[in-house]
């Protein structure tokens, strides 16, 4: 199925893929965390695995701090940083329960982790050490950084907006505008708002500015649904990734499809072919020329046999990612 503009990565993880993240500066480096307990660094240009390091349990998320340092956490509740030049591990700290998300906020120069222990912790990446623990009302399922603001999605469909410069109080408490469990939140590169996806085939576009004029612009739409024999099959929307230049975004669902959306004209720009299994994670690279697609069964329907986990790298064009100017 893979065409000339797309190829599969060699030496991929041996179990489900939990996250793919591109390097913030170099276009070809991709970090991949997996349920096999590893974090791998790929050079997608030459399609080789550059490095691999191990956690004691499955890894749920990873992030670049700078081009030479990766941070990762998972079921062992340990936060690790790895020097990609010297191949050395440092355990930075721990949560009380598995770590679900790891992100970096360049504006405030802080690493952020979210965990099922109902807390978000900040970490100073230079020392590195803990820089604060902030209790959330529920288990943290997803988080995203928009400038100096942090958007946290928890169980119970709650969304909390924190100001990373002043973590003394929650800036905004919201309820997800979608009816079902929050799967993923990603902030617009222009820091105006965020996109939230739910477990039942729906995506919401939300804005951070609480003024009524801006709030009027928010909307939600259905996607990742397939009609078969008169029954609409509704799939979870697991992954969102923004194109850093055009502010368009890609969504990936358990139906195996990847869609690219233009949030300003409320249009779908394109849909790729169907991948062998659920889309677990998506990542555009920093200049928006490539999209990493992790097709990996997420055990959303129990422990059943499933296609092999794989990462596809797809060259994307402006035609696929740029909003049509009307």
């Amino acid at each position, binding site marked *: 199925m893979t065409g000339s503009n797309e190829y599969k990565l060699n030496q991929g993880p041996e179990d489900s893929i939990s996250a793919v993240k591109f390097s913030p500066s170099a276009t070809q480096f991709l970090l991949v965390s997996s349920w096999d307990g590893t974090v791998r660094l790929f050079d997608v240009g030459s399609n080789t695995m550059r490095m691999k390091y191990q956690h004691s349990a*499955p890894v749920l998320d990873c992030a670049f701090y700078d081009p030479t340092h990766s941070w990762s956490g998972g079921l062992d509740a340990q936060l690790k940083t790895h020097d990609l030049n010297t191949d050395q591990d440092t355990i930075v700290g721990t949560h009380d329960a598995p770590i679900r998300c790891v992100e970096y906020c360049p504006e405030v120069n802080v690493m952020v982790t979210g965990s099922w222990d109902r807390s978000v912790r900040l970490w100073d990446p230079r020392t590195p050490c803990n820089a604060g623990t902030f209790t959330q009302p529920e288990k943290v399922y997803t988080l995203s950084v928009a400038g100096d603001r942090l958007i946290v999605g928890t169980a119970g469909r709650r969304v909390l907006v924190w100001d990373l410069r002043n973590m003394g109080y929650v800036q905004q408490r919201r309820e997800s505008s979608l009816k079902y469990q929050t799967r993923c939140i990603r902030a617009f590169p222009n820091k105006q708002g965020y996109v939230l996806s739910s477990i039942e085939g729906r995506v919401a576009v939300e804005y951070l500015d609480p003024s009524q004029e801006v709030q009027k612009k928010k909307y939600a739409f259905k996607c990742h649904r397939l009609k078969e024999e008169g029954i609409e099959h509704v799939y979870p929307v697991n992954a969102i990734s923004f194109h850093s230049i055009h502010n368009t975004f890609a969504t990936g669902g358990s139906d195996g499809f990847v869609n690219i959306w233009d949030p300003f004209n409320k249009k779908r720009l394109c849909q790729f072919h169907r991948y062998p299994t659920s889309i677990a994670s998506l990542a555009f690279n920093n200049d928006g020329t490539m999209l990493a697609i992790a097709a990996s069964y997420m055990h959303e329907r129990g422990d059943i046999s499933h296609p092999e986990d794989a990462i596809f790298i797809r060259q994307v064009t402006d035609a696929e990612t740029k909003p049509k100017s009307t």
Partner: protein
Amino acid sequence: MAEGGDVEWELSKENIQPLRRGRAISALHHALSQQQDGLSSAINQQRQAFESELRMYDGDDPLDVWDRYIKWTEQTFPQGGKESNLATILEQVVTRFTEGNKYYDDPRYVELWIKFAENCPEPLDIYRYMQAQGIGVTQTSLYIAWSEEYENQGNCRKADLVYQEGFKKCAEPHDKLLQFHKALQARVSRQVMMNVEEDDSDDEPKEPQRVSLADLKSRGKKKAIAPINRVGSAIRSIPGGIQSHGASVLGNASNSKLVVFDENKTRAGPSEPKLESWAAPPTSKAKENEQKPGIWCDVKMPQKSKFGHTVMAPPPPKPTFQPFVEESDQPPTMTPCKINPAVNSVLSARKPCREETPLKRLQEHHQQQKEAESGKLHEQSMYCKELLLSGATEFCFEELRAERYFKKVTQEVKGEKDPANATPN
């Protein structure tokens, strides 16, 4: 007796909800000391453990986990309240096992239903629903709870009828039913006796007692001792009667407006137990305040005059004098404060929530199941929805998978420690 911990529980007595079976004092101490500073992570971890056990359980008695979870919740959250999630868990468990009547006669299940009913605004509806569905109809505990509810509402006749129904259904254990029924009869008869006794004592020639707070003094030259408010037989217009219980104890005409309901008067004959079958769910919650919201300022209470008709208070007359105002006095200047009205307003108004009772939800659940069975579903969720939502809090796929992973790891560790028991795999 007097341990150090006792003081703590004495201090927060009012925050502890009574339990039928009582509380373990150690659990209470533990819970109270833990809850000094919000929900501790230990409680969250225990709850998470229960939640995952609910989902991972694959034995043939899933109710057991729920039962333990609920008992733990009751002991850990002595003050009840929202964060205990008790109401949610109870609703989940009773709804969950209505499918297939495996547990309908299980004392634990019936006990959970009763707890659920006690948490509902209208417990009687729930009991009637249980009866209509055949849940716990052979269990004594249902009839006891049901009867006690009637008794609390002051309806002893219905309370008795509930026991009759229990006898008809041969509820088990029979001794207990008999015992509680006797106790009810004893209470009722004692009550009747008490009423009669009161009247008897009224009949006896006693010194008239005064109701007024102060002694009546004689005025002027007259040495009159009248009129006084007196109680007792001396002022009874009908001497030696048991006719009027309760009413006119205060024997004063002006107080007779207050009519005390007397159930003994409404003797409607021994009709058959009207344990009607379940027809429709109750429509609304018991609301305390049914007044429509409106503007509060400039609204005056209509006042009753002495003569009983409504009068509006006359507008206050304008003062005829000029109030003195100091020349230097100026209206206090407000601190300039930039309030952006857009920012202060809520992001989106809460949608008008439907009037929902637990029972209504139960019935909706039934409806949905029927639809699902008959294949009328238009949408199908492509993930293990049941598993994610089956507890009081939701889980995500990764959490479920993590549970399976941890289970596997602990099994492997056990296997390594004890290679004799390890399965050759």
